[in-house]
């Protein structure tokens, strides 16, 4: 089993965000096996839906081991990607197609409500990812409001 290292800071973050180490491992493994990941310099961004949660992990290889840079997650259902903006090229590359991803929109659903959120996506295979601040602010605000209003 590959060794996964979390600094004290990242460990605290993972704890606060309710992301157990097993899930971090699962996401890394998923990214490496399926190539459903984005690459930027020595960093990799992978994600996996585990139960009703989509967990994102940014990590880098450290020899045989993996150093985790950050983790974040949300409970909205990620759906179709649209509105690709080819001019707005992002620094990350698709792990499958090796193409730079571009700015796009991804539909997200929660409690029966569907809305768009800004994402980055591969123009070839269409895989979409959310950046950390979008998950922690935009999606988090949406989930809170939807829960309050649907209660």
């Amino acid at each position, binding site marked *: 089993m590959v060794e996964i290292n979390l600094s004290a800071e990242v460990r605290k973050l993972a704890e606060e965000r309710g992301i157990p180490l097993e899930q971090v491992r699962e996401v890394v493994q998923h990214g490496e096996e399926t190539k459903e990941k984005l690459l930027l310099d020595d960093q990799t961004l992978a994600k996996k839906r585990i139960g009703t949660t989509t967990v994102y992990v940014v990590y880098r290889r450290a020899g045989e081991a993996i150093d985790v840079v950050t983790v974040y997650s949300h409970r909205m259902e990620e759906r179709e990607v649209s*509105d690709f903006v080819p001019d707005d090229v992002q620094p990350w590359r698709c792990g499958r197609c090796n193409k730079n991803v571009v700015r796009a929109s991804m539909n997200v659903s929660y409690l029966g409500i569907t*809305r768009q*959120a*800004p994402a980055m996506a591969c123009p070839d295979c269409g895989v979409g990812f959310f950046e950390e601040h979008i998950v922690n*602010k*935009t999606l988090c605000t949406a989930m809170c*409001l939807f829960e309050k*209003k649907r209660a």
Partner: protein
Amino acid sequence: MKFIVDPDPKWVEHATKRFAAPFVGRPYDRIDVDPILLSEAGYLAGFSAKEWYLNPKKGIASVIAAHEAFDLIPVAHWWPTIHVWEQELGNKLEWRENQPPHIKENAIKTPEDIDKLEVVSEEEIKKGPTYTSFVEAFDYVRDNYPNWFVPLYFAFHPEANASQLIGLEKFLVMTIRNPPLCHKLIQKFMETSLNGCRALVERYGSAMIVTGSTVAGSDLLGPKQVKEFGVRYVSELVKKALKIGAGPQIWYHHCGNHARDWELWKDTIFTPFTVMQIGYEGRKPFPLEKLKQLYGRRATLMGNVDTMVAYSGSPTQVYEMAKEQILAAKDSPYGFISGLACECPHGSPPANIHALVRAARDFGKYEGD
């Protein structure tokens, strides 16, 4: 003593539910209304536009009072001028008694000045008139009317504010003769504005992003230029503002005529809390049917009753125009807010604001409520 009587908390509660409804896909009692009352709220409370702009507390309080009186959205708009973050870069403003302030002297006299222009740091911007007056208004609301507290990152329109630094005519010439210099100017303005965003987010933890376009519209530029000088910067500004921690609420106000460029704005950024408004198609309010088709699943739409009709038309004219828009956009997937195409002109008759609300009551009710 406070300037206005505290709004009825029961009304605020009701208005807050109505306002949240489109964003959670659950219609409440009726379509909401926002006539974009700025110094008009001062007029309704008996003071001049100049006083409204120069007295943030009194200004924003007058908006709260007007919104309660007319049963409007429970959000108080206030900004010190549309020339935000410009004085910090050297523009000189002149206040007029009953109109918004205008530019007395441009910061940039010659194209060479653009190279010398320096982005204003966050530290410096905190001492400038834009930030300090926003803080005066928002602190006052936070401390006195916490239910109304929605700080704004009022970015206005990057290309329009940039054009004001050199003067519109010179700017337009520059878009053709020297596009790189034009980009440099917009970039420097935008980075200054984003430093304002940083300062506001640092103070309040968040801020609703208000932006859009005016110069980048169909009266002054072709679609290709709108994309180059408008869409690109609005996208970049919003992207950066979100990263700084503003949003996720965004209000896109595309002012003026967008007959030939209205589709281009779909390439900007949409969060689940985005309001989209396009003013005009030629001289007529932009058709809501069309707006709904392209933007109905991207944003909550906002109406655009002609401001000239609001100012000099009859209440019936306002009512009929609002009715038509409500019937066209009421069923828009992510909801609809009835409103004016731009700021309600100072001195518009109160009866016309009432007519706008009457149309929402008469035609904006949701079935089963």
